[in-house]
């Protein structure tokens, strides 16, 4: 069944590629419909836990390569949600690509990517997982940079870090396999065996965990791998950015939930001697700190960036940070909160990116200070973005709030004061950049060149409206998502949180989301009653503004000039400048690349040196050989 779906995906990809350049709309509609079919099939797979399909590829020596697909609760959950979000994005893509220049390969690669997406979530052994992981990496690389020169540099950030992670995972996989006590490629059994091994050989287990964590962190852009999303999201096709941010960046988190978190939970159960902090293994605690650092760092970088897609991308980074921190708390609430936040983030961040895509679709601008005042021109887009950022900031009654609440429950009930502070700092900071984006793009003065901007076509609005509805829906009744999450959490060996459709019960307090939502609505009516008092307000032109008595036209004041958006948070930047100058991870990476290049150039120049006999190389080589032979 699963392999059939994957096979169909490949066939669909080829069909999409075969469709000519003229049939853009057909191609994208076809892929959206196809994915709808896949989503339907996936829905049918619900409940068939434990089903495994095996396809032998070959065996050579002592290794047997085979593809194993199975349905786990966690995997199904991820597969289903990502597919639905992908359908949303593809509906958006239909119009977007009909009106803009489209590369034929994008759709082909994207369908492959969607297939590998499913394969990642359905793989039950490491080889399959790694294969799907690799396919995902290279297809997404070429979607991000389908022959556009400026996107290439951006994609490289993504690609190099991802490949680095992938290779780390490769070593990890084979290290697992090579360890005599484990010697399995099955994910589930490797967790159990590793947990047992941690009693006798904690060092090996630690290194294996580190290798996998490197890989997952690199994919999910956790510190110190945080630079790639900003680059890649910003330069990717506008309809791919939602996918990148909503789905792709979650693979690392899926890996963590699939392997690292259950492993830690197992280790806690099996191995009583492990070093603990606040009731969780010290490694887990350290990793949680990585998440917290990511959250704060992502927030700061989002605050100081001027490119709207970069801002949203850094926001993604920081949200990933919350989820990572929460997951590594290892409590039921922590894992649930992390997982729930992943879903919520997927929903609201794709909504945000879709609305940004819509803005770019109409204005072709990405720098925020060149935009402004679009809210009146594009109300649906504005509303999507507004609700998106409300959700992202974790403000009730939208969905982001529900997951943040659980995260705080987990952090506070687990007694992690400093982690909580970091997360709170990031969360408050989120407010800064989100508002900045809202203001710079949608509020303030409308530049004259955008006077004729219209709302995007209806087909493009559909996914945005769907996004709004799902944000409101999940915010009102988080139980609809939390219940399947509860199943997945239970499968990890934790007691799931008590939830009903609109009620979440935590250790420190409980919350009824329906009541919170209706409180807001009630308060709004209360305020509205005040609004009705007195004379009706009248409208004025945007430029009829307090300008200290000066006539704007006489003064040469244009809407563009009167829109305060550039260097919005310069003071914040000033506060952090001393730290930023010293500690810029990006500069380290750049230096690394520079050094690699010059190292390569030096080596290749070495080949040209010193005559036909190449004494330089020769002598070097002899020295190496002698040393190696002597010492090893």
């Amino acid at each position, binding site marked *: 069944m699963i392999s059939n779906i994957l096979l169909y995906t490949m066939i669909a990809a080829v069909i999409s590629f075969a469709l000519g350049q003229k049939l853009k709309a057909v191609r994208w509609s076809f892929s959206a419909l196809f994915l709808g079919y896949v989503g339907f099939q996936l829905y049918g797979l619900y409940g068939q836990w434990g089903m495994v399909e095996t396809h032998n590829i070959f065996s050579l020596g002592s290794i047997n390569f085979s593809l194993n697909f199975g349905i786990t609760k966690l995997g199904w959950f991820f597969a289903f949600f990502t597919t639905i979000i992908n359908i949303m994005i593809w509906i958006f893509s239909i119009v977007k690509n009909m009106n803009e220049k489209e590369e034929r390969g994008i759709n082909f690669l994207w369908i492959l990517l969607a297939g590998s997406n499913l394969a990642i979530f359905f793989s039950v052994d490491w080889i399959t997982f790694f294969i799907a992981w690799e396919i995902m990496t290279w297809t997404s690389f070429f979607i991000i940079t389908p022959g556009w020169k400026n996107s290439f540099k951006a994609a490289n950030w993504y690609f190099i870090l991802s490949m680095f992670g992938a290779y780390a995972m490769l070593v990890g996989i084979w290290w697992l396999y090579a360890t005599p006590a484990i010697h399995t490629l099955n994910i589930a059994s490797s967790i159990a065996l590793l947990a047992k091994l941690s009693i006798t050989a904690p060092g090996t287990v630690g290194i294996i965990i580190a290798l996998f964590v490197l890989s997952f962190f690199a994919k999910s852009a956790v510190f110190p791998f945080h630079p790639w999303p900003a680059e890649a999201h910003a330069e990717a096709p506008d309809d791919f950015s939602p996918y990148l941010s909503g789905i792709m960046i979650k693979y690392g988190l899926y890996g963590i939930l699939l392997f690292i978190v259950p492993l830690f939970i197992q280790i806690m159960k099996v191995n009583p001697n492990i070093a603990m902090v606040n009731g969780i293994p010290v490694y887990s605690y350290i990793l949680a700190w990585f998440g917290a650092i990511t959250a704060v760092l992502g927030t700061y970088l989002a605050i100081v960036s001027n490119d709207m897609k970069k801002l949203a991308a850094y926001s993604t980074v920081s949200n990933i940070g919350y989820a990572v921190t929460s997951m590594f708390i290892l409590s039921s609430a922590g894992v649930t909160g992390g997982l729930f936040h992943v879903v919520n983030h997927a929903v609201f961040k794709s909504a945000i990116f879709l609305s940004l895509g819509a803005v770019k679709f109409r204005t072709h601008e990405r720098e925020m200070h060149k935009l402004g005042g679009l809210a009146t021109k594009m109300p649906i887009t504005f509303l999507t973005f507004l609700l998106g950022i409300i959700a992202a900031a974790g403000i009730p009654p939208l969905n982001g709030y529900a997951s943040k609440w659980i995260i705080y429950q987990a952090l506070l009930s687990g007694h992690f004061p400093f982690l909580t502070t970091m997360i709170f700092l990031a969360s408050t900071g989120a407010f800064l950049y989100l508002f900045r984006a809202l203001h710079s793009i949608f509020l303030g003065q409308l530049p004259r060149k955008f006077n004729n901007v219209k709302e995007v076509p209806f087909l493009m609005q559909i996914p945005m409206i769907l996004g709004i509805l799902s944000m409101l829906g999940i915010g009102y009744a988080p139980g609809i998502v939390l219940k399947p999450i509860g199943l997945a959490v239970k499968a990890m060996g934790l007691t799931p949180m008590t939830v009903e459709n609109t009620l979440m019960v935590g250790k420190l307090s409980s919350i009824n989301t329906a009541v919170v939502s209706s409180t807001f609505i009630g308060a709004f009516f209360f305020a509205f009653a005040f609004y009705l008092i007195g004379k009706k307000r009248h409208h004025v032109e945007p430029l009829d503004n307090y300008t200290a008595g000066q006539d704007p036209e006489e003064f040469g004041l244009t809407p563009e000039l009167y829109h305060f958006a550039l260097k919005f948070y310069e003071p914040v930047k000033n506060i952090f400048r001393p730290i930023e100058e010293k500690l810029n991870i990006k500069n380290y990476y750049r230096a690394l690349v520079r050094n690699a290049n010059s190292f390569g150039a030096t080596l290749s120049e070495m080949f040209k040196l*010193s005559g*036909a006999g190449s*004494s330089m190389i020769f002598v070097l080589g002899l020295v190496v050989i002698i040393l190696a032979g002597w010492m090893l």
Partner: protein
Amino acid sequence: MIQSTFFYTTAIILFLIGLYGVLTKRNVIKTIITLTIMETAVNLFLVTIGYVKNGTAPIFTSTISDVHKFVDPLPQALVLTSIVIGLGTTALMLSLAIRLYKKYKTLNYLEMDGEDEK
């Protein structure tokens, strides 16, 4: 026995001289010469392996039947082959040297620059 040690030593010294030359000389012709020295060294070495003092040709005749006095013929065959190959190689190298000189008007290998595109 002393003589064969002498030959071995000579061969190795020659080989090292050749090696040194190959590695350090930048002049194409000098490189070729040093290579030839190396080949000679190897040939000398091979011949020495088969060398027997006061040896005879390895042919059983009525008079000579002392197997220990036979000179091993195989190394000599090897050396012959090697010499032939060496000759071919040297010729090839020299022809290349001519071509190089025609192209670059110099015999210094390091000064042969330009024309790197395509």
